[in-house]
């Protein structure tokens, strides 16, 4: 297979891993206001404390992979999306420092707010980044040539809000796995309602995108895409149906898996709509690729190291599997 295609797949993989994994960490943070007391908040935060850093590292890897394989994309999009991206990072700062700061605080109230607001900021900024990316970027001579706020429009704002619902769905289905009793009951309810909202947004995006960006519609209707593009909404609907059923029958792991499939359906649909453009509307990912030696050399590193990484990250998850308890031996 072509080196550039492999790298495009790697970038796509790390982005979806980030979205799903940090998605549930951020989602849990978004649900913090629904906790009844400090003990419940402790539990919510403990459920992600051992894994958030590894989850967030997929973002750094994704950004690094874009830098390696598609330097023009890295340069142009990071300049174009300067404000949402740095807002996103700012949100992650507040979220990230909370774990240790809150554990050492006697009055936890302000850190609860920092945790919630930082995560909210990060999620909305992520949505705006995605919306801004889809809205298209003005490029001249391989450099960003637009304005600072080109990313801001009703469509990107809508994506920002949609992502909040999406991450709440991931967070609440994750909490179904990690909690028991009344907290789990509440998570079932939250998962149900957020699932409905997510479905609504996915339908909205599916209708809005081709209206807003006519090229996407031409893409959909052209061969060969027309033969498989409908698969993704169908997959999404199927996942949604199984999700609701599994919530009704109080299954514990299945709702989270269904939510992941729901995300995956949306994500693949998106890729299929944008492909082969790396900087919509006009620049393909083939045009932005790095030198072959760089791609080959770094790919070898990835092939050797990434399986090991996946191995120990999975091991680390397995150490912390099961219901989260009050950590008596919290450091």
């Amino acid at each position, binding site marked *: 297979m072509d080196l550039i295609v492999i790298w495009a797949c790697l970038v796509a993989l790390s982005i979806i891993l980030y979205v799903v994994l940090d998605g549930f960490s951020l989602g849990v943070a978004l649900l913090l206001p629904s906790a009844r007391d400090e003990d419940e908040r402790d539990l919510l935060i403990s459920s992600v*404390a051992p894994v958030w*850093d590894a989850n967030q590292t997929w973002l750094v890897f994704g950004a690094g992979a874009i830098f390696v394989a598609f330097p023009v994309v890295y340069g142009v999009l990071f300049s174009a999306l300067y404000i949402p991206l740095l807002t996103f990072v700012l949100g992650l700062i507040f979220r990230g420092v909370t774990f240790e700061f809150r554990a*050492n605080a006697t009055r936890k109230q302000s850190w609860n707010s920092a945790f919630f607001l930082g995560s909210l900021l990060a999620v909305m900024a992520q949505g705006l980044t995605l919306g801004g990316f889809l809205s298209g970027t003005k490029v001249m001579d391989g450099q960003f040539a637009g304005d600072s706020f080109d990313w801001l429009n009703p469509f990107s704002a809508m994506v920002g809000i949609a992502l909040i619902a999406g991450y709440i769905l991931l967070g609440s289905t994750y909490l179904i796995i990690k909690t028991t009793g009344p907290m789990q009951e509440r998570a079932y309810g939250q998962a149900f309602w957020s699932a409905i909202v997510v479905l609504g947004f996915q339908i909205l995006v599916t209708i809005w995108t081709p209206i807003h960006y006519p090229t996407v519609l031409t893409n959909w209707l052209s061969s060969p895409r027309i033969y498989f593009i409908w698969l993704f909404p169908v997959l999404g609907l199927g996942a949604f149906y199984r999700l609701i059923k599994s919530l009704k029958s109080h299954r514990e792991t299945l709702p989270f898996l269904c939510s992941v499939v729901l995300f995956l359906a949306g994500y693949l649909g998106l890729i299929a709509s944008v492909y082969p453009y790396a900087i919509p509307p006009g620049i393909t990912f083939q045009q932005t690729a790095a030198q072959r030696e760089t791609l080959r050399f770094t790919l070898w590193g990835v092939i050797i190291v990434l399986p090991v990484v996946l191995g120990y990250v999975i091991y680390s998850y397995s150490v912390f599997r099961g219901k989260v308890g009050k950590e008596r031996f919290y450091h």
Partner: protein
Amino acid sequence: MEAIVDALFLSRIQFAVTTMFHILFPALTIGLSFYLVVVEFLWVKTNRETYYRMYRFWAKIFAINFGVGVVSGVVLEFEFGTNFSRFSQMVSNVFSPLLAFEVLTAFFLEAGFLGIMLFGWEKVSRKTHFLATCLVALGTILSAFWILAANSWMQTPVGYHRLSGKFMVADFSTVIFNPSLPIRVSHTIVASFETSAFVVAGISAYFLLNRKHIDFSRRSLAAALVMAGLFAPLQIFLGDASGRQVFHHQPVKLAAIEAHWETNTTAGAPFFVIAFPEMTEERNFYEFAIPNGLSLLVTHSFNGRVPGLKIFPREDRPNVLIVFWTFRLMVAIGFILFFVMVWAALLWRKGRLFDHRPFLQTLLIVHPLGFLATELGWMTTEVGRQPWLVYNLMRTAEGVSPIPAGNVIWSLGLFLIIFPAIGAVYFFYILKTLRRGVDLLSPIPPIQRPIGMRPLKDERKGDSVMG
């Protein structure tokens, strides 16, 4: 005045602010993780409970520190693209794989095992926990290696060829193991070890001065002083080697650091202990010099020729005043810490290491100096690299993103509020952890408790434990 509202100038300030905030945390993380490896090794080996308590206490400091280091580091990776996109696009073929390898081999390793290190006490066995600590420590070293490989390449670029301006890779092992890498990596990692050793020593001295946690503090201090005793002298040797490396590869930078204007032709070049360099007039106000000192230092010969600043074009010179003084203050700190260790050696021979109050007070006073030296060293090497991004090949002005200054004013303004605030809170919680003192009573999780371990009776009697 125009420079102030310029995206280039602001981006440089922003990158400097972010780096200088960020570097404080790895400066402690790298050395402290190594210290924790030693302590946990002693715990597993000897089953002495104090070592377990030591680990738990120093791991608390480590954890607070690590969290801030991670999040401030993410900002940097984004800023290559947001603020220096032209640079990123120009060098990515050569430069970006080094960052990608940092994520792959270091960030994941640290993140994957940090959870076990901090939260895994009830979940994994002692050996597994020790392994997790070792892997986190390895991750911090690898992280330093890759990011410094990237920085070293910017300082001493090799292994590339140019294709219509763009840097293309000729050979990756040449790129990675570029001329300034070995000395930069060792100098920086040893700086972190030294900084951490003095932090642990200072805090332990504080406990001893207040007669708290005697056994705990003595052992903590002893381990820290062994570490400092090894690394403080080594650092002076590495610093000297680093100076000669700069002399060979970046002679303008060396001349600037030394405020050395005229190339010496007949006699040796003097070393200025004090001077106030003036760049437009190309001379120093008030000089206090050691004759032949500079020649001796960098060429290791009495009359060695050292090229002066005047033979290099003005537009290729870094800010002489800044690097002259940052370098001298860094060296001064290196020697202060070295002499503290000489004193420690003398006290140790007399067996008075733990009860000589002036010495303990000195340790408390000097304990933050490692951070300061790290910042000063970083300023010396980075300001000294100017006006280049890629040394002698790409100017800093050519690398900035095509963004309006307003963007950077916004983000720089936010960072200037948030970084000091986070720094203050960090400092507050570290102090709080110290005030609380060491937890000597919490039960050891059953899975960690070796069979037949004796409890720490003497320790408990002598100490007040606050919760």
